[in-house]
């Protein structure tokens, strides 16, 4: 039941190397299977008249000391050679992998002991270890196989130990422990399947290596003993005559190289496939990019339509990624001086990408198009690259969710802050430092002179977020974009940061965009809110309207589904059945229609435009105000069962 998906063979055949490798290994395996029954007799036939010949018409690769045909013997030896190599690799993996996983399962002290033993074993040279073990076990095929198995086992142990340790920390292992699942089952069902992919690839590579090592052992005389013969053994015989009839070594040598190369190439191309699949695009992409209907509609309720006097005026912003993903669709946002606008939405709603598009910080693959993009009345599209960078760098500040990830851990606070002013305003180092201390004080960090000398890791989460804000204030920002600035923080700290953002708005006159999944947080700081769903703005409204009477069913449901300090504890919460459509969705209607209790046929067929309902309130819904926000009985019945798979 498990592990059906690790190696996708069809994928392999898409690369020429993969095809060649598969053909090589396939032919070797077929040869191993059919060789002995077909040519076994011919290979064993002793011909006294043709002893130790070179290439002749009857024996193109010559004959051995008993006059047996070397071509036939090479073909027949495939079975033993491949069988022994595979056996040795499997044995080595079979011993090594369980030993390697053990440290993650047993107690700490025993685990440490096993780990050191593995480290010690890995330190031995492989072939030396193989010869050593093979000589102890005894000459012959058995000795060679055990010797090679013993030599490769430490590598499997080491690899699976590393892989196991990475999986052991996963919650599902903890969950299995809490369930009381036994050690062996934990290893067999929970750990191994999740580390199987790299192990299988290594196994493939090891088979090639084992083939060579076996030949080496036979060459040294510790391998397969006559009358049995493998390629290595034949090579040993041939080597003695190499100056007289060099052709006799060609058969086994070519066979060894061919087979070993095949296994190694196959392993490599499987590994490359696996690596490419990590983080790959979804597999079933639409053949043609999504073409969204771009309507140039009249927007009637917007005063000062030329966009002058506004901080930001973006119309019809669409962000697309190659492959047909369109996570932001026709978004318009307008920010007046001194205003704080909120964007609220769930994960995947496109709220962060909208902000990143405004700041021109989208990943390189993304394509952003818009009908209009004005920042402080200047058209960003008509500015050159340099001018645009300067405008954005000076007047825009961004505060991210995770201040630890966005501060350089190797730089002191004053250097990080100072850099901004040095680059954008050409201040000297001393002036920059003075200003950074000033700004730290303005975000209310206690003893700013001392804190300026700290590294980011020496500060608490709340303090780091203040530093981030101070960094944004180093220039003279007129627009602050705060992307989930308090999500990683505790509530008491969250409150302080929100107050700080509010104070900054009041004291500097800067406008701000606050992005959050938390509708309550947005309602505390903003004057106006855009509600986003599936890449679109579905409603735009002020805070009193948001609290009193949101018109879009999604906004209403969002409000009714979040427990507040005032929620009625006797009644179940409203929940929205199903899940949001993804960025690949191409259906013509309202994106919320599949989850909406008020949805009609029109909702499914026709996209509702964002249209004014009353002054300052716009909604994209064919049936606004159809769901009573805080009753939500229409929702509850359906919400008891989540829809089947999306």
């Amino acid at each position: 039941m498990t592990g059906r998906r690790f190696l996708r063979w069809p994928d392999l055949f898409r690369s020429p190397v993969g095809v060649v490798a598969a053909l090589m290994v396939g032919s070797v395996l077929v040869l191993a299977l059919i060789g002995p029954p077909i040519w076994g007799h011919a290979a064993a036939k002793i011909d006294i008249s043709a002893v130790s010949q070179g290439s002749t018409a009857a024996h193109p690769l010559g004959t051995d000391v008993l006059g047996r045909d070397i071509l036939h013997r090479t073909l027949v030896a495939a079975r033993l050679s491949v069988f022994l190599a595979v056996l040795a690799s499997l044995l080595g993996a079979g011993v090594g992998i369980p030993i390697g996983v053990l440290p993650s399962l047993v107690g700490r002290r025993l685990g440490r002991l096993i780990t050191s033993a593995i480290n010690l074993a890995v330190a031995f040279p492989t072939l030396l270890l193989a010869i050593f073990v093979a000589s102890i076990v005894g000459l012959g095929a058995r000795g060679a196989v055990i010797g090679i198995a013993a030599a490769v086992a430490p590598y499997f142990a080491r690899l699976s130990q590393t892989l196991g340790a990475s999986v052991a920390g996963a919650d599902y292992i903890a969950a299995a422990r809490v369930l009381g699942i036994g050690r062996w089952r934990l290893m067999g069902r929970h750990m191994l399947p999740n580390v199987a992919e790299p192990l299988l690839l290594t196994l493939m590579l090891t088979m090639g290596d084992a083939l060579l090592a076996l030949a080496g052992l036979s060459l040294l005389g510790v391998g397969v003993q006559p009358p049995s013969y493998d390629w290595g053994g034949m090579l040993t015989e041939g080597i003695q005559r190499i100056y007289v009839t060099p052709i006799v070594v060609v058969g086994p040598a070519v066979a060894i190289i061919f087979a070993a190369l095949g296994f190694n190439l196959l392993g490599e191309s499987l590994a490359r496939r696996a690596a490419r699949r990590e983080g790959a695009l979804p597999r079933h992409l639409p053949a043609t990019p999504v073409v969204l209907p771009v309507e140039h509609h009249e927007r009637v309720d917007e005063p000062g339509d030329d966009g002058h006097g506004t901080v930001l005026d973006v119309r019809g912003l669409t962000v697309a990624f190659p492959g047909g993903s369109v996570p932001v669709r026709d978004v318009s946002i307008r920010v007046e001086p001194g205003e704080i606008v909120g964007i609220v939405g769930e994960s995947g709603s496109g709220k962060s990408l909208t902000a990143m598009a405004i700041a021109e910080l989208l990943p390189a693959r993304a394509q952003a198009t818009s009908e209009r993009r004005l920042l402080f009345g200047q058209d960003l599209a008509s500015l050159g690259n340099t001018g645009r960078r300067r405008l954005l760098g000076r007047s825009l500040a961004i505060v991210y969710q995770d201040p630890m990830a966005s501060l350089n851990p190797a730089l002191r606070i004053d250097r990080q802050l100072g850099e901004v002013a040095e680059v954008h305003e050409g201040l000297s180092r001393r002036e920059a430092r003075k200003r950074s201390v000033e700004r730290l004080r303005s975000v209310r960090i206690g003893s700013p002179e001392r804190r300026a000398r700290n590294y980011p890791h020496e500060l608490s989460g709340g303090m780091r977020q203040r530093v981030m804000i101070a960094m944004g204030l180093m220039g003279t920002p007129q627009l602050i974009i705060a992307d989930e600035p308090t999500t990683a923080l505790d509530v008491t700290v969250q409150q302080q940061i929100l107050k700080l953002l509010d104070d900054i708005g009041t004291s500097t006159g800067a406008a701000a965009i606050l992005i959050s999944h938390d509708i309550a947080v947005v309602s505390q700081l903003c004057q106006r809110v855009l509600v986003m769903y599936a890449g679109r703005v579905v409603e735009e409204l002020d805070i009193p309207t948001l609290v009193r009477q949101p018109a879009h069913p999604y906004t209403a449901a969002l409000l009714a589904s979040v427990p507040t300090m005032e929620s009625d504890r006797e009644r179940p919460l409203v929940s929205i059945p199903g899940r949001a459509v993804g960025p690949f969705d191409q259906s013509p209607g309202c994106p919320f229609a599949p989850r909406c209790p008020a949805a009609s046929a029109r909702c499914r067929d026709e996209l509702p435009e964002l249209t004014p309902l009353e002054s300052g309130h716009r909604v994209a819904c064919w049936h606004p105000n159809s769901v009573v926000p805080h009753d939500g009985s229409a929702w509850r019945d359906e919400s008891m069962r989540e829809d089947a798979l999306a």
Partner: protein
Amino acid sequence: MTALETRGLTVRFGRGHSALVAVDGADLTVPEQSIVGLVGESGSGKSTLAKAIVGLVPIAGGEMLLDGVAARRRRTGHVGGLKRRVQMVFQDPFSSLNPRMTVGAAIGEAAGTGRRASRAVRASEVEELLELVHLDPAVMRELPSRLSGGQRQRVALARALAVRPEVLIADEITSALDVSVQSAILNLLRDLRDRLGISILFVSHNLATVRYVSDQLAVMYLGRLVEAGPTQAVVAEPQHPYTRSLLAAVPRLGVSIRDVATGTLDAVEPPDPRHPPSGCHLHPRCPVGPMVDATRQICIESDPREGADARLHRAACHFAPTAPSSDGTARYELTEKEAR
């Protein structure tokens, strides 16, 4: 009756000067058939306490009782021998399900541990469990990667319930979910309590969520429980200054941040948990402590947990009112009934 109780439970990480006492002598009670909410900020030790209860983290001191009987302690200090009685659901449903196991296999494995059952019996059990968490039984054949976050969290719940535990530990189980999905999980928890008579320890940093879902409420600060009582009572009349600060910080819909009183804790940064302040851990930040009133030296000198049992909500504060012994107990029980 009490389903689960910890007495002086202590968890310590590391040794010597750099030792971190993550949980410091926690006395927590989870009554039968009720949901107890455990709130606190990051670093308060709430998740560590939950992990210690299920035996994922070794205990340095104290004990844990199930139905009044002390649980076995292993040589390593981990709580052991209660696999089938206490279960845990984790925060992140994307990492708590084995990506290589189908939903049916994962739940079936949990249902099957420690006993033999035929395949058909197991399949019908899995179906029942999926129904219990309001999932379509058809998801049985799916791998977790095909499911949404909310669906995965339901699967994780079903898996925990498969061993028919008496107590369920839910560690931040809604915080990785989108808001529209969160509420369904919260409804489900209350539903499970009522239908299965199960006790739940609901650990969360979100006070509004905890208030909605739980019957009892316990508040942790820097490894210590500072207040515990019926949810309604604690929310309506918080006795500990830290609880009051937490309540004041919950964002309220439509209330402008300008109208919110400045938080009482914002003057001082949170202390280093490795070297917590003496006496009452809160004293350097406390709005009623020695920083405000210099005569209150007792906060610096003595542990306020002494005598907490006599105070309302067992508040670990020297200046919390003492519950009047005659009518105080009566009042406590009344509020407890109200809470249900």
